[in-house]
């Protein structure tokens, strides 16, 4: 209290990827404000893509230059190996998702217009478009980048909200089936806000326990502060609720199918890939950096959550009749598999590295496949828009074998068949788990995988072994963007399935530096 306030030191270079994305988002808002309507789209798309690409380049540059060993921005943001890897992953996935979003068919012309009203008619006539989608998306991506890098709980909370709030809006912007879209937005919003409150309350309790929201300081306090264990445990549990909600782990998974189904498919793709990656990054950081000393306590709890998640995801998925809901449940199940990787983090650096790198690899593999799968979903349409009902997919293999084949390939990757990326993802976390003595969990994992395989296989049966319906959906000629997305995803799934070594190396290197504490 000497009257002078030290100016905080900010490592701008380290944070450059974040700043680029947020900056572009703000420019986007300005564009919305000042650019004429007909120009907006033309400005937004290159701006968005370039900023994402630029951020990616900066992240790569940072990685090459050397991974910092200290948190940046006065300990608020940790740009370490895993964070950079996750950033890279999120940025690529976001880039790919933007290619999907580019197709304006997905978004409503005027969100304010009541479905079926004259206003809506008019907006269609005017070919109105919510070009705000792009800046919103950039904000969400910025949040996603910040979330796993947040080194204190406050930043994590803010990042969580920055990530989530635009997504709530984006969920409600579907052009078709607007009632469902709006419902998805309401549900996601209410439940998201609800769970954020838990996260925040957990933060408060931990702050009360440790006297700081800085993860490293919390971890230090674990050994030293006595008599307030209840605060600590409940606080950790509340934090867990907030994070597990974002992951969609049972019993916090309920929102996922509804939101995934109702949202515009490109947004679903982004959520299923980017959000999941970010949430896992944050989960790892919070529990591993902040509560690392408490792992004897949280590991058993996560054990139960992981088992429940895998089983619920796998079992509920098999009776789904909607392709997007099915993929949502599949995503829940995969969340469970990924949790195995979290539990597999061990006590020695080597064990940690293998678990962490496995998890990172899994995230990359799963992210690409998911985006690809949802991209395919956008292409299978009938008169009412995308054909979600599985029965409409019957015989697709005969009508457009290439697309159906690619989708089948994605499904096999989800199922974890060898020579697809999904296999190595699963293998990596399973192996880490066995190495750390979590073999029972792995056995549950493989049983769940076997159950899960059923519904992936069922879709293949429908597409290839059933005869097409007479009025079946048609496959639209993909826009260049969508085609590129499917292509990139398929390529990634193949390459990671046949020669995963480079990405594994990368993940390994990233994981080796571990999280900065």
């Amino acid at each position, binding site marked *: 209290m000497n009257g002078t306030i030290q100016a905080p030191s900010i490592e701008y270079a380290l944070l450059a990827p974040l700043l680029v994305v947020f900056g572009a988002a703000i420019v986007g808002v300005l564009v919305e404000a000042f650019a004429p309507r007909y120009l907006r789209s033309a400005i937004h798309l290159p701006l968005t893509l370039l900023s994402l690409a630029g951020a990616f380049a900066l992240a790569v540059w940072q990685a090459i230059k050397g991974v910092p060993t200290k948190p940046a921005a006065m300990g608020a943001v940790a740009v370490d190996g895993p964070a950079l890897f996750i950033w890279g992953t999120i940025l690529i996935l976001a880039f790919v998702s933007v290619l999907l979003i580019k197709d304006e068919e997905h978004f409503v012309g005027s969100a304010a217009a009541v479905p079926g009203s004259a206003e809506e008619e008019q907006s269609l006539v005017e070919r109105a478009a919510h070009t705000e989608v792009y800046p919103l998306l950039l904000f969400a991506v910025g949040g996603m980048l910040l979330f796993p890098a947040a080194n204190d709980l406050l930043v994590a909370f803010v990042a969580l909200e920055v990530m989530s709030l635009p997504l709530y809006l984006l969920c409600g912007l579907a052009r078709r089936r607007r009632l469902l879209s709006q419902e998805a937005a309401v549900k996601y919003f209410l439940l998201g806000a609800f769970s954020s409150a838990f996260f925040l309350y957990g933060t408060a309790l931990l702050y009360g326990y440790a006297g700081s929201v800085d993860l490293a300081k919390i971890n230090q306090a674990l050994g030293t502060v006595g008599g307030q264990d209840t605060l600590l*445990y409940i606080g950790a549990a509340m934090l867990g609720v907030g994070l597990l*909600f974002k992951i969609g782990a049972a019993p916090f998974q309920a929102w996922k199918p509804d939101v995934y189904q109702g949202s515009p498919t490109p947004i679903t793709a982004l959520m299923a890939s980017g959000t999941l990656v970010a949430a896992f990054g944050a989960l790892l950081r919070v529990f591993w950096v902040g509560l690392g000393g408490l792992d004897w306590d949280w590991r058993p709890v996560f054990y139960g959550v992981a088992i429940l998640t895998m089983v619920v995801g796998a079992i*509920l998925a098999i*009776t789904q009749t909607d392709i997007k809901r099915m993929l949502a449940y599949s995503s829940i199940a995969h969340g469970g598999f990924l949790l195995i990787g979290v539990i597999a983090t061990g006590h020695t650096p080597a064990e940690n590295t293998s678990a962490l790198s496995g998890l990172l690899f899994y995230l990359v593999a799963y992210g690409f496949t998911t985006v690809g799968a949802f991209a395919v979903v956008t292409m299978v349409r009938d008169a009412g828009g995308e054909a979600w009902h599985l029965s409409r997919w019957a015989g697709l293999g005969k009508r457009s074998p290439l697309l159906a084949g690619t989708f089948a390939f994605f499904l096999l990757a989800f199922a974890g068949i060898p020579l697809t990326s999904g296999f190595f993802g699963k293998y990596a976390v399973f192996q880490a788990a066995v190495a750390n003595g979590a073999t029972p969990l792995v056995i549950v994992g493989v049983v769940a995988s076997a159950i899960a395989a059923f519904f992936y296989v069922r879709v293949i049966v429908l597409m290839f072994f059933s005869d097409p319906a007479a009025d079946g959906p048609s496959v639209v000629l993909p826009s260049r963007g969508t085609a590129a997305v499917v292509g990139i995803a398929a390529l990634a799934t193949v390459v990671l399935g046949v020669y995963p070594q480079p990405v594994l190396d990368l993940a390994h290197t990233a994981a080796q530096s571990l999280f900065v504490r």
Partner: protein
Amino acid sequence: MEPAEIIQHSGGAIGAAWLMIALPLVGAAVLLLGGRRTDKFGHLLGVLMAVASFVVAALSFMQLLGFAPGERRRGIELYDFIPGLAKVGLLVDPLSISFCLLITFVGSLIHIYSIGYMAHDPNRRRFFAYLNLFVAAMLLLVLADNYVALFVGWEGVGLASYLLIGFWQHKPSAATAAKKAFIVNRVGDFGLLIGIFTIFATFHTLAFSDVLGNASKASSGTLTAIGLLLLVGACGKSAQLPLQSWLLDAMEGPTPVSALIHAATMVTAGVYLIVRSGPIFEGAGTAQLVVTIVGVATLLAGAIIGTAKDDIKKALAGSTMSQIGYMVLAAGIGPVGYAFAIAHLITHGFFKADMFLGAGSVMHAMNDEVDMRKYGALRKVMPVTFVTFLIGYLAIIGFPLLSGYFTKDGIIETAMEHNAILGWLAVLGAGITGFYMSRLVFMTFFGAKRWEPTAHPHESPAVMTWPLIILSIGAIGLGAFLVLGNRFMTFLAPAVGAPEEMPSFHPVSPTGLATLALVAIGAAFAWFKYGRAEVPAVAPRASFLTTFARRDLYGDALNEALFMRPGQWLTRLAVFFDNRGVDGLVNGLAAGIGGTSGRLRRVQTGFVRSYALSIFLGAAVLAGAWLVVGNL
């Protein structure tokens, strides 16, 4: 006297003994692969191959005679069949060469006969192919120098038998009979196989020379087990009780087949097996006893069945069973019996083939009618057939100085010395033989015509009668030639051993007289019942005993009740269990998971407040769990 050592041999006819097998095999292959193209000359090629095989056999025999008796066991190495288990080679010794001569000689005659018999069959070529296949397999069976190769031949003849019984496979009865023969034989093979496994487990070799030469070193328990298992195999192949049931049905095959396979050669393979494995049986008294009991039981059963059959071939088949029963009985007695067993086997081969072919000739004349009640008075229209058949008949009932008189009575005498009960039962069997064979002859060739209106019997062509004539010559003189002076026993001794003291032949012995008397009574009884009296065209209702005989001693009924019905029931049960039980469990598990899913997804109500509740409760559980775990 112990069997002689086996000497490795090469060169000469014996060195080329494999040609015996190869020639008919090639014949079969050419005829089967050549297809319809070989229709024209198929039967000629078949005959040629059989005759060529006989020539090789005869030359080998000559060469063998050139060696001193102690050097008459010649081994020929062929190749390594199953490395580590069995090398294949041939063993040409007095025992096998006797069989070779019988098989190829009778076989050739039957081949020739078949040219005429099958002349009108569109598939005659295929018939000859199968016959050739049979000859090859049978020769392999007897020439093999180890149990594996023997088994290959053993199954080969089974296959040929299957194919030939079912030759007219468009007839369901023929197809069923063929299948039955194969399956019942497989039951026998089951025993034989396990016997072979036991031999291998005991000796780690399957070569006759090693196994039989060392048999005395094995424990008697092992030898008994092996002996009994081999006996099971022999029972299957030789239609001995309790595996006799297939033989009667096997008469569905063309008559030459019945003559060659189901009378002269294949069915005697069991006897060969027992005699060949002599050292094993000699070390196992119990097994020998069982062999003799089986033999006696079968010889009586076969004879009884023969008394009641109206189907000429089935009556002969019963007789075959019975005669093989005699051979088995003799084979069970030991070295004294071996020679008689094989001698009777050879003479039986001639006279029974003679009679079967004669029966075939009759059927050929009578539009393939087999019911003797529709025959009668054929002696005048078919003189050659009648005379040759009569010779065969006299031979089998043991009419003095004909073949059967020497060989069968030899067996009876030996049995009597071995064990009086067995001996008297064998005598009884001979008496019944006298009855049923006479019945057959009287019903067929004597009495009044009971022909179907369409029947126009005539004598068969020369190609069929000449084999009959040749066979009947054998039926007349072969017995005396073999038995008198212990000629055959001496010849066989290097192969199977011989008793210290050669038995001497008594033309007039109490046993012989008793046998003759009983046979005469039987024949006379038959004359009164079937020769002089009118034979009803339809079988009359019969006493319990006759029905018992007509129904093959209820053998089939027994099989049906004991195996077939329970088997069908078991099969149905197993199929049901597999579909509902095993597969039901799998599908049930899947359905269970699906059902769980269907119910569980109802939890996802769609109401945001229920989702919030799950989060709220989840948070509570999480916090609770944490507290519990943390405070542990």
